[in-house]
């Protein structure tokens, strides 16, 4: 007998449903094939496990009638529930693979490093003005120069409407326009608060994904281990809350921020370990 053939009838053999001739062939194969023996052993252990949870429950007619009625109700609800479920799935957090989650974590860590580098490069005694104020200052400085003689060269002047150019100067103006360098687009620098919020959001997203994965597997985890895991998470959550409070009170304090992001990072590590197991 070949292994493929054995695996096909393994359950029937366990249930005693194979005829005598096949049972003998299977028994001989089991004695010769270690791999199939391991599979059979696994099936036996599985059945032993199920037996532990067997209960002597007798099903009364009333109980069965109640079950049937609920099945009919649920079918009716399912029709309307499908659309609701679709909407819920559409707006719920996407279920990503662990690879994608790990990528998200890497992005969160990268964002953390970017925030830290940005804050550490700043002079702690002075706060740079926000982007809009800088723009306002530029406008003011430009408007202040309105009365000053324009010392800029003709080809650096603001672009004029081509239709207004005279026939004599049309060519020269066209050349001036063509040779004028393009003004670079002004890109607003993210503020520290924005960077922090971004980093925090990325951590929160990674935590949500990993928590979903871990919750799926909760029933498979030993209760004692689960209790310790929940305890560790609760302690980290308290620390996250404390550090977030500190950041809210001192939003420009990089030290408070480092603590908060470190706490988030630790929670991600713990969840990943649990999810990877």
């Amino acid at each position: 007998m070949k292994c493929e053939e054995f695996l096909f009838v393994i359950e029937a053999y366990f249930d005693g449903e194979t005829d005598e001739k096949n049972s003998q062939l299977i028994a001989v194969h089991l004695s010769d094939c270690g791999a199939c023996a391991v599979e059979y052993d696994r099936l036996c252990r599985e059945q032993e496990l199920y037996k532990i949870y067997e209960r002597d429950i007798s099903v009364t007619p009333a109980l069965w009638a109640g079950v049937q009625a609920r099945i009919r109700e649920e079918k009716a609800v399912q029709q309307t529930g499908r659309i609701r479920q679709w909407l819920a799935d559409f707006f719920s957090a996407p279920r990503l693979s662990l690879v994608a989650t790990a990528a998200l974590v890497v992005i969160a860590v990268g964002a953390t490093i970017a925030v830290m580098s940005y804050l550490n490069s700043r002079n702690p005694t002075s706060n740079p003005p926000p982007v809009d104020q800088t723009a306002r200052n530029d406008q003011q400085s430009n408007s202040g120069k309105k009365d000053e003689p324009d010392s800029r060269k003709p080809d650096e002047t603001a672009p004029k409407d081509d239709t207004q150019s005279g026939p004599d100067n049309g060519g020269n103006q066209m050349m001036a326009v063509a040779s004028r360098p393009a003004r670079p687009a002004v890109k607003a620098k993210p503020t520290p608060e924005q960077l922090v919020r971004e980093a925090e959001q990325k951590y929160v997203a990674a935590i949500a994904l990993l928590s979903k994965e871990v919750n799926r597997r909760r029933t498979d985890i030993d209760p004692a281990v689960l209790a310790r895991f929940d305890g560790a998470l609760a302690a980290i959550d308290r620390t996250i809350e404390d550090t977030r409070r500190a950041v809210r009170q001192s939003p420009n304090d990089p030290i408070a921020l480092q603590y908060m992001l470190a706490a988030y990072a630790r929670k991600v590590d713990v969840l990943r370990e649990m999810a990877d197991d």
Partner: protein
Amino acid sequence: MTKTFSKLILTFALAAAPLISAQTIAAQTQSFKLERGGRVSIINSAGQITVKGWDRDTIEATASDDETAQLRVQITGDSRRARVALSPERRYGGEVILRVFVPRYAEIESIEIRRGDVDVSDIEGGVSIASHNGDVMATRTGSLKIGSRTGSVLARDVNGSFVGKNFSGDIQVIGASGAVDISCFSGDILARNITGVVAVNSTSGDIQIDCAKDRVDVTAVSGTVTLTGIGGDVDANTTSGDVIFRGPIRASGRYRLKSLSGEVTMTVQSDAPGFTATLSTYSGEIETAFPLKLDSPLQGPVNRRVIGRYGDGQAQIVLDSFSGAARIIKGAAVKNCP
């Protein structure tokens, strides 16, 4: 006719059962020669594996259980590499006690068991154990590598390095002449009398490291970290537990103890060598029993940092906590480590 014949067979089997059982309990033994440098792998699905080194140059294996089945131990391979396993004729779901004697010089390439305990002793070569559910004990072995899912791990007198990974269960290493590397998700960790570098990574559980001659690196999430009698540099980092260091510090030592929400306490000898200490805490207290020449004074009610020198300032101490206290205390000398 068929029914009568079947009844006869059944009657005979029942009558002979005690005799058959007695024979299987008496067990089956096999012997196999292994040369120096030889490697052995041992596998038993469920039950128990006991491996002991002896002064002979052969492998002998005994398998026994209390079920009515024929047990046979298969030792396959050659004198350089042997494999000890039970034959699949045993009754499935039953537990088997497998006892293996190997030459002391053997290297135990792998011991595999799904369910059951492992006990290994007196092996000069390296030992590698993969256990799913059960306790593991190893005594007087060469370099030791243990991977376990659930169950406790106890290793004593490891002549070489120790690498232990466990998902759930305590890990104890007492006496190792090489580096120790422990990863545990849920369980307490104890490492004592370690000559090499110690690296510990734990999520939930207390960590205690006593008398480590070299560098110690600890990363933990929840649980107290206690370091006593550490001869090398220290880097201990935990999220929600306390970090406690007791013991003499070295003149050129580097000590970095951090906790997010726990307290960080360093108890050093009264006649400590000079050190530069950076004590920082966001919302906790800073205390030092040593008079420090402050390079940076204590600041406001939150986000405090003290940087100061004691003596020549040669050793470096960094204690940091977000919400707990950061303390340097004078204390009595710790018991001498071997």
